């Protein structure tokens, strides 16, 4: 008879097999079909990556003039080296670019300061954060009163415009979305139905139709003598659009809160605004912080649509830069560069959101 169970006589646990070879055996080649799969996948990766690598690295040429790229099959990174300020700030006057750099540096400093736990509670830091939008706006826009050259918003573009549009839209959409979420949860039928109608209407239509509306129809709603810049209109459109999505996120937080919290606030005799402001919202907003970061990623990606209504954002700047006669048709390089920027921003934000999620789950 065949023995099925081999009795184990040792007094130690079996030796754990480890090492690179065993790892490979377990994870890549263990049954025969896995080995086939590994080989096929490796071949696929090789076929995809090799030409890209050859184009982007091996055959690439660097420098700052178009001459270095003549007769080369690889990427012409000289184009990016020459034009990267344009990618960053668009048609912003070149002798004034230091102002944008200064503004970006200030924000970066503030963010770094906020990352230190000890500084986070300081009043001064909060004050600086609150003041920063105004300071940045003055610095970037300029004007006679500040002894800075005035730079109209038609000259803003590139990464600066993308970041500016998404940040400002987020800042304005946030209070609006809190009101909408509260309205949707309200007992008052008129307010509830107005909020529900707004949220569902906006979520049911594409952003592009809202942007068209903001850019073409919105000026019709105001007296003829009022004029809005294109950026202003786009901002209104994006804000109105994302307020609806953000409101649904916040509603999730409001609903996720235990009923006892509402009842406790009522039992303390707090009025509606005190109840919401001191008890409910601080807890609800903390729950929805990770989805709100994801929402912000959505805004960041969708600001690329403003190109369709004629703004030169980070994506459109790729076209603008390649239409420069010096660098005609270098569209692949421009795309890879722009894609990399979007990717770095969105990927780091999504990692950040995941860290937040893990922290709040504890």
């Amino acid at each position, binding site marked *: 008879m065949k023995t099925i169970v081999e009795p184990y006589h040792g007094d130690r646990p079996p030796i754990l097999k480890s090492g690179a070879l065993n790892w490979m055996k377990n*994870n890549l080649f263990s049954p025969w079909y896995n080995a086939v*799969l590994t080989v096929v996948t490796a071949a696929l990766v090789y076929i995809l990556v090799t030409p890209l690598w050859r184009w982007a690295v091996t055959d690439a040429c660097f420098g700052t003039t178009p001459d270095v790229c003549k007769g080369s099959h690889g990427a012409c990174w000289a184009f990016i080296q020459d034009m990267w300020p344009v990618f960053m700030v668009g048609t912003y006057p070149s002798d004034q670019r230091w102002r944008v750099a200064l503004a970006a540096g200030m924000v970066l400093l503030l963010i770094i300061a906020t990352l230190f736990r000890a500084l986070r509670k300081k009043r001064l830091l909060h004050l600086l954060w609150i003041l920063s939008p105004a300071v940045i706006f003055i610095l970037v826009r300029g004007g006679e009163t500040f002894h800075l050259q005035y730079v109209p918003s038609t000259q803003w573009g590139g990464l600066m415009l993308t970041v500016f549009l998404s940040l400002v839209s987020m800042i304005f959409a946030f209070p609006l979305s809190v009101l909408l979420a509260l309205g949707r949860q309200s007992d008052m039928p008129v307010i509830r139905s107005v909020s529900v109608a707004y949220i569902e209407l906006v979520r049911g*239509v594409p952003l*592009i139709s809202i942007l*068209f509306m903001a850019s073409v129809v919105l000026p019709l709603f105001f007296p003829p003598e009022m004029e809005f810049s294109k950026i202003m209109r786009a901002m209104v459109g994006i804000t109105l659009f994302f307020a609806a999505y953000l409101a649904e996120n916040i509603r999730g937080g409001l609903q996720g809160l235990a009923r006892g919290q509402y009842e406790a606030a009522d039992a303390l005799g707090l009025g509606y605004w005190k109840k919401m402001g001191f008890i409910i919202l601080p807890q609800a907003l903390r729950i929805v912080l990770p989805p709100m970061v994801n929402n912000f990623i959505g805004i960041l990606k969708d600001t*690329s649509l403003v190109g369709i209504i004629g703004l030169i954002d980070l994506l459109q700047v790729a076209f603008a830069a390649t239409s420069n006669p010096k660098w005609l048709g270098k569209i692949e390089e421009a795309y890879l560069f722009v894609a990399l920027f979007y990717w770095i921003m969105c990927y780091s934000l999504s990692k950040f959101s995941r860290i937040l999620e893990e922290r709040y789950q504890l």
Partner: protein
Amino acid sequence: MTDTASMPAPEKIPFWRNPTIRACGFQAVMLVGLVLLALVIYRNTLANLTLRGINTGFGFLSNEAGFGIGEISAIPMINPGFFSFVASAMGVALGLFLLFRYLIQAEGNGKNRFMLGAGVVLFTASLGCFYTSISMVETYTYTHASTYVTALVTGLINTLKVSVLGCVLSTILGLFIALAGLSPNWLLKKLAHAYIEINRNIPVLMHLFFWYFIVFQRLPGVRHSASLFDTVFFNNRGVYLPRPVFQENFALFFVAIFLSLVIVFFLWLHGRKRQGETGKQPPVLIPCLGVLIALPALVCLFTGTPFHFDYPVLKGFNFKGGMTLTPEFMALVTGLTVYVSAFNAEIIRSGIQSVSKGQTEAGRALSMSEGRIMRKVILPQALRVIIPPMTSEYLAIAKNSSLAVAIGYPDLVSIGGTILNQTGQSIEVIGIWMTVYLIISLLISIGMNWYNAKIRLIQR
């Protein structure tokens, strides 16, 4: 202890502190505010429109459009034939539904014979109607002389085409990527993760531009087209495929295929029921295959081949014949599919991982095969988690198909934009866009909510 008499009488609450009255007042103020705002907007708009000399109203829709559309789809003509087509299709569906309900009813407690009779009668009658009305459906296509309405309907059909295709393809691709991400093979898993992380962190418009400007417009010219077995051709004017051309008798052929599919479905249902009752698996595969092949073959034998293929051939400067998929269409569908499949893969992966490990182990303990565990144990439970987020992805595809305007594919928004520029009727055009997208969104949500309710865990 205090004497109740000595306590001050409870203060009468003034009416402005009564919560009901306050709520009413607050809402009244808000309502008045909204109405006032609407009035101001209305007056300003009228003033602005008269200033610019734009007429209001939808009268412009019946004017001649006069512009060209790159991709023209056939529009069914609203005539009695079309109505009987739709009605008979609905009748067929209802008949099938009745039969299905009859079959899955438990044996014993008064099986509803009426349902069987009604189902059979409705099904056969509607199928007959359907067969006769197929040939009565007439279509028309957009030309330069058509009206703006026809242009918009053409755009709507293009939008729907792209959306449906995008939903189906992104789900299939997403499922494969998700399964690859769950594979024990380290390399495959990493590749799937890389695919997801790269694609979902790049804006969808960038995807579209990439596929349009860098892939489909960079394909070789017409004279140097890449070909697949000399039947499918790729060049920078699009993708050329063979097109099936239907003969006179194709309707009967379709009816035969449909009928055989219905029979196969009921055979399968019957087999499953028998297995549930007796534990024995009756032979299903052979009879099913037999029906599936025999019935259409029989029709072909009597009436001749139902269709032949029209192959694209290079004649002069372009391909003639066959079916053309424009680069815009290809770029839009590919871009949307790749972008959304990354999200779908993530949704499906987390759905599958949400099913507890014990379920897989229980399946293995019952000596089910891995594929069977996936199909019968994991997926049905994972679907409950997957459906709600998937619904919003489908909605996103329908809405993102409007980005067609950026690469010049003539969808609803793109054609509407042309009309807007020609006529200046911005409010009306944007109103049409929003209404149509709201209806599409509503239909998708209703459909998916119905499906979600059907597969929901019924808790007793």
